[in-house]
């Protein structure tokens, strides 16, 4: 419905906390998620887009037109907060119809629109209830219906599901995505859960300390984290950081604590580097095998879909590996304090750029 261009949008709060500059373009009908840890500036960015926070600099374009001077109520945005912010003194129906009433719609049009939204979100039977008589999940559906009533050009969702239990969350994720596709409304979704971001988005923008550190589709970000922070935050792989102690034809040797790993890549001796290894690429065994193997102790063995997630402890570092052989998993579990062996091929390790130092004030 609208193409959104965020151009170097920036806001510095009185206490010096700085959010931005944020640069991000969202195509018409696209579903983009802002993902980042608490305090990264996700809400602030969203509120700048909605118009509740005035940016100090930068610009915000809807279809190429700057909207910074337009008040929130005229931006035609739908928004849903984690704390649904439903009007407590109104019924579900009145909540959904609020924007239509404000715009002076005819009563019969209002009824038709509300019923249409209610059946789309499967809340028809709730319409007469007061908002304190509905559950958390229902409240989020009502909030979504209310946000969609005016046919907004842009939908902003700030952690709408994070107060719900996992099963309900997953159901609503699917539903939000279904409705977004159907209405083809440009959507910006905020979450701090990488799982949710991966499940729902066309593209993900990762925020840290008020700056976008990486933008890409889920596979892209998962396979090629832009830096150490992203790699660690996504939690998809084992991230090691160490000092280069030697290098020879395309392989460097990196010392991490008391262990030394071989990693494919180029770096000067003495340089500090980070690299990641996917759990499925880590080999674990009771006996030493061919290739470079190191000793570690087993911390936990947790069964998961068709495999076992084995966590090893190596000095202060944890290493996660995926094991498919159930008899190996059983022996690992009962290994107690006896060391086991693990290793990975140097070519499976990916050197990642170090991230900018953390600047948060907290």
């Amino acid at each position, binding site marked *: 419905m609208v193409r959104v261009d965020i151009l170097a949008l920036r806001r510095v709060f009185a206490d010096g906390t700085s959010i931005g500059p944020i640069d991000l373009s969202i195509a018409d009908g696209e579903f983009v998620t802002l993902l980042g840890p608490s305090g990264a500036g996700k809400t602030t960015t969203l509120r700048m887009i*909605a118009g509740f926070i005035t940016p100090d600099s930068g610009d915000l374009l809807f279809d190429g037109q700057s909207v910074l001077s337009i*008040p929130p109520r005229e931006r035609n945005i739908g928004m849903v907060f984690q704390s649904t912010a*439903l009007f407590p003194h109104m019924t579900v129906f009145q909540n959904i119809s609020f924007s239509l009433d404000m715009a002076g719609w005819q009563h019969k049009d209002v009824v038709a629109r509300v019923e249409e939204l209610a059946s789309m979100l499967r809340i028809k039977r709730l319409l007469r209830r007061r908002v304190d008589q509905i559950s958390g999940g229902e409240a989020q559906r009502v909030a979504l219906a209310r*946000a969609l009533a005016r046919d907004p050009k842009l939908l902003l969702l700030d952690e709408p599901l994070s107060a719900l239990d996992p099963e309900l969350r997953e159901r609503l994720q699917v539903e939000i995505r279904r409705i977004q596709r159907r209405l083809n409304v440009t959507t910006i979704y905020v979450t701090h859960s990488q799982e949710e971001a991966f499940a729902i988005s066309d593209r993900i923008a990762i925020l840290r300390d008020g700056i976008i550190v990486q933008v890409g589709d889920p596979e892209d970000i998962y396979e090629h984290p832009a830096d150490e922070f992203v790699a660690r935050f996504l939690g998809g792989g084992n991230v090691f950081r160490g000092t280069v102690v030697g290098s020879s034809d395309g392989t460097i040797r990196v010392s991490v604590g008391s262990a030394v790993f071989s990693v494919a890549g180029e770096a000067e001796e003495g340089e500090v580097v980070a690299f990641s290894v996917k759990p499925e690429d880590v080999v674990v065994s009771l006996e030493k095998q061919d290739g470079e193997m190191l000793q570690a102790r087993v911390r936990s063995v947790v069964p998961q879909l068709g495999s076992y997630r084995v966590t090893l402890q190596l000095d202060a570092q944890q290493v996660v590996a995926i094991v498919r052989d159930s008899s190996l998993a059983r022996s690992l579990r009962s290994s107690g304090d006896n060391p086991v062996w693990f290793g990975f091929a140097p070519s499976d390790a990916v050197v990642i750029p170090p991230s900018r130092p953390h600047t948060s004030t907290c």
Partner: protein
Amino acid sequence: MSMLTEVGVEVRRRSVLSAVVIASPILLLLIFVVYPVTYVLIAGLLYGPGSTFAETVLSPVTQRIVAFTLQQALLSTVITVAVSLPAAALLARLEFSGKGVVRAAMIVPFVLPPIVVVVGFLRMFGPYGVIDTVAMAMSGSAISVFDLSTGLTGIILAHVFYNIPLVTLMVSSSLETLPPEVEEMAELLGATTLQKWRYVILPHIRSALGASAVLTFLFCFMSFPIVLALGQGRYSTIEVQIWSAFRYFDYGQASALALLQLGVTLVLAVAYVYLSGGVANGGRSARIKTVSFRELPRSARLLVTVYAILLLILMVGPIASIVLGAIYDPVTREFSTEGFANLLRTGVGGGLTALINSVVYAGLATLSALVLGLPLAYAQLSERAGVRGVATAMTLLPLGVSSITIAYGLMRAIAVPLRLSITPWPLIVIAQTIIGLPFSARAIEVARRNIDPELLEQADILGATRLQRLFFVELPLLAPGILVGGVFAFAMAIGEMSATLFIALPQNYTLAVAIYQYLSVRKFLEAGAAALVLVVVCLVAFLVMERVSGESAGGTI
């Protein structure tokens, strides 16, 4: 088996004891409020002497008085609400330095005796008062040109002064419980500022607004010193008329009017309880949507400034003018220390006797208000709904029955059989106790409710007996609440004029009554100096409350 019985007897003895302790204040209130008021109503209506109920109700004089009572209360309420709404919005939404001080200072008018406010109003808005002096200088006139302090204007202005803090505080704290997201959502959904107020904010504060308006109406409806002193005999309300009727031994009329008044106040009290039940007390929202003064558009800044200055003149002017009133005589138009000299004079009409009376009566009344307030507060927190209900009703009772009615009841139902008519001072103490009790009980109840129950459980687990727990854990934790309640009760007692004037013989006059007597014989300096003493006492009381309880003093109100 025998041990079990012993334990049983012990438990029963204990519960009998606590029942007696809890029942005693309720019993005393029954004896000193319910019985006298009922007696006096019935006796007055049945046996007079004086006019019958029908005569009273049908007389055009009564009808005029009732109409005026309602009219002035309604006007006062409407104006108070209209003036307070912007103040409440600013207090909740505008960031400005000194906000905490302003919020705290709002309690001052509550503890300021009405008769003192009268003195302040005369000096600020009255003939040869501060504003009049400025107006005279500007117009070059040698005589007074400006008087807003007397008649209907004065009465209403003083009532507005009194109730602005009440409405402002109640409404602004209700505004502060509105989550900012709700408001933003309304904006995002296309509501204009006006629509946002109409459909989202007003419904949210409706209960607080209604409750504070009803309370304001109730206070104005029963107001006595302000109407008496500023009305200067030309204006009379039901409350004033009960007093006059009593003085002319027309007990029939006094009782008929008291019955009428009681009917109205009870309805209002019920309305208040109903409305205040709907006030959301979710606590202040984590993030309040505020704006700073600089962010406002220029026109709004101008408006806010003008409003704030006018409000300041209305609220601070009269209080500050009392200082002037103590040293400036508007009759001779000279400065003098005669007022203070009078405070050191003994004998009838002298200030010292009144000062001593004030302190002694208020001290005794405070002590009894605390002794009764403690069990009453506990009874209000009882697990049994019945006990809770009776205790709460009893605590609120003195707020719903006017001071004059209570005094009238005490004078006829208690003074006569106990032969206290010629030494009525114990009745003054009783009346002041009754008037202070709601405040002491409320402060203690709030403090008790704020004690973490886990602390008391800890004391139990650590082996304290009930008495040890009470003395070593509970009372120390309650101490600030008891102090606040005591100070509040003292301020109410020492400033009490209505019942005291009703009961007192000249040798029993307190400062508050003396001020009224001075004013009625135009001894303005004497009145001013006495008022200043009361202002100082009340300011000290306020500071103590502030120190001890910070914001929780507001909760007491």
